[in-house]
């Protein structure tokens, strides 16, 4: 059977970001936590990749490694490559890599209140992008900041450019985060649960704005989210993570129609759906493994309803399901078939 551990899925010519066999570990006093164990994913220009997975599965750590903002020490990339526009970010000189950050790839954080500097005005923080990367004067940068705030539809931008983050509502603050990420029209935006911290009522608005601007500027997007509804709406591809690995990656339609990994199946079935009314809600039993002590074989085996002897000894590689699709389950064929 065909496996995909090394080669990226969907080898296309317009690949923007290509993460290969990435390993990240945290060297803490309690031991080494292997947070990311061989993640590979690719994002094409203009494509949206949704990353799913339980808390602690390594979604954030992976993108932190991509951005180069890993908390280090204790975090270290121990293996792998991160190719961005064909260049390996991990071997790039620090100063060159810094110039990529913010300008070519930008990040939207979950909690804008803590992610924005409390003692600097939003105008300063937005303008800083232009001052540092474009060498603009403070005054021009401020004008750009007003423009950006207009663009993310913050009312009375001109009056509010001198306000501080705490003076805005949660939704408005997240718009400012989005504006900051979009400021220099990067090729890639990474959004780590961009709406989780918001009121339910504004989540959709903020997500729509993000999707719309992404579309307008044709940027690639990595969207980490727990909201499967959002995924179905905006994502082109999905990567499902478990215990620091990708367990399934596929185009969004394929995965919703027929998951090729028992874990994905569990995730999808754990959301209530109208057409399944009456059927018992399937929840994945048990807890994710401790990263200092990952079970041998398939990391999912203690919780997997399909697990058998082989799963406890042999680590499943990422099998090729179709040209665009991979699954890290020895028995993916059964899984796809049985729906």
């Amino acid at each position, binding site marked *: 059977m065909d496996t995909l551990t090394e080669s990226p899925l969907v080898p296309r010519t317009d690949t923007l970001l290509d993460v290969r066999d990435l390993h990240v570990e945290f060297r803490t006093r309690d031991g080494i936590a292997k947070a990311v164990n061989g993640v590979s994913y690719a994002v094409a220009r203009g494509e949206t990749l949704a990353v799913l997975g339980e808390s602690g599965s390594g979604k954030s750590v992976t993108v932190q490694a991509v*951005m*180069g*903002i890993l*908390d280090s020490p204790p975090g270290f990339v121990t293996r792998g490559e991160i190719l961005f526009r064909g260049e390996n970010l991990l071997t790039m000189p620090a100063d060159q890599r*810094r*110039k*990529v*950050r*913010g*300008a070519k790839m*930008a*990040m939207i*954080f979950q*909690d804008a209140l*803590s*992610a*924005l*500097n*409390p*003692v*600097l005005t939003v105008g300063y923080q937005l303008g*800083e*992008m232009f001052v*540092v*990367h474009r060498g603009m004067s403070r005054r021009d940068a401020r004008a750009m900041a007003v423009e950006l705030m207009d663009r993310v539809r913050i009312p009375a931008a001109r009056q509010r450019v001198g306000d*501080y983050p*705490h003076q805005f509502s949660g939704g408005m603050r997240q718009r400012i985060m989005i504006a*900051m990420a979009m400021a220099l029209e990067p090729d890639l935006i990474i959004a780590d649960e961009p709406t989780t911290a918001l009121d339910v009522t504004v989540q959709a608005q903020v997500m729509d704005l993000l999707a719309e601007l992404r579309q307008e500027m044709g940027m690639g997007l990595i969207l980490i989210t727990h909201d499967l509804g959002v995924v179905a709406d905006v994502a082109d591809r999905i990567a499902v993570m478990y215990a620091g690995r990708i367990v399934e990656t596929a185009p969004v339609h394929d995965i919703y129609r027929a998951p090729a990994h028992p874990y994905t199946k569990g995730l999808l079935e754990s959301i209530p759906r109208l057409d399944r009314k009456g059927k018992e809600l399937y929840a994945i039993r048990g807890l994710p493994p401790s990263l200092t002590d990952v079970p041998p074989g398939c990391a999912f085996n203690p919780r997997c309803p399909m697990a058998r002897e082989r799963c406890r000894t042999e680590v499943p590689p990422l099998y090729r399901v179709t040209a665009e699709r991979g699954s890290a389950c020895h028995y993916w064929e059964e899984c796809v078939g049985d729906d």
Partner: protein
Amino acid sequence: MGRYVIRRLLQMVPVFIGSTLLIFVMVYALGDPVAALFGDRAPDPATAAQIRKDLYLDHPLWQQYVHYMAQIFQGNFGTAFDGQPVLTLMSTAWPLTIRLTIVAVVVEAVIGVVLGLFSGLRRGRTVDSGVLVLTLVVVSVPTFVSGYVLQYLFGVEWNLVNPSVSPAAPFSELLLPGIVLALVSLAYVTRLTRTSVVENHRADYVRTAIAKGLPRHRVVLRHLLRNSLIPVVTFIGTDIGALMGGAIVTERIFNIHGVGYQLYQGILRQNSPTVVGFVTILVIVFLIANLLVDLLYAVLDPRIRYA
């Protein structure tokens, strides 16, 4: 904001009255100020009675206090032990002490923040541990020990500075006394900055600043340090009053005729107008410094709003 300032000024009144009354009572409990005025000679009873009357000493203590304060607010601080008006002493002493305090504040702020920033950025490494030990040593050595040791080393042994400050006391001569005066505070500023930098280092907004692709110096100075300095500035501000009061030891060591020196002489010779007068001004300086710190706090941290 304006209302806040007015309210704070009003709140100062009871604090001012309380602290000056306390010092007034303590000083007058020391002994007979008239006898002290004449030193070893016994005053003739008529003169003594006249002085007592002038100083309101024949009135109850609270009336003496009111009378004294009324005099002070008319600019009359009474007479010092050597017959000079206390005001004259003040006009020479305060500029000296203010200069000394400025040197000390600059020393503690600049060196303390730089040391604190460096050890905070290199937490857990050798530099950090070294600075930690150093600050502990500095805090545990009393000023009169470190003062005499430094005076001996720099002034006598290596002959780098004048061991005793000349009456004009230019800034260059005040450098060593300023360092001595600042030493303990300097250690605190270092510790405080270090703790604050370490705390803020992991903050999300610092991560954002890095993700924005800002150069490291900008991340550290504009984002990390700017936030870390908020508690430090507060400390330095409130420390100004303490430094002026604490100068009493340093001024003795280096023979600077500033506030500390005059206070010391006043206590030694039981001259209450000198002691109460200087302390009253110190209290006012202390209160105003505290108010300014609170206002500065709002400038540094826009999340603080005065209601």
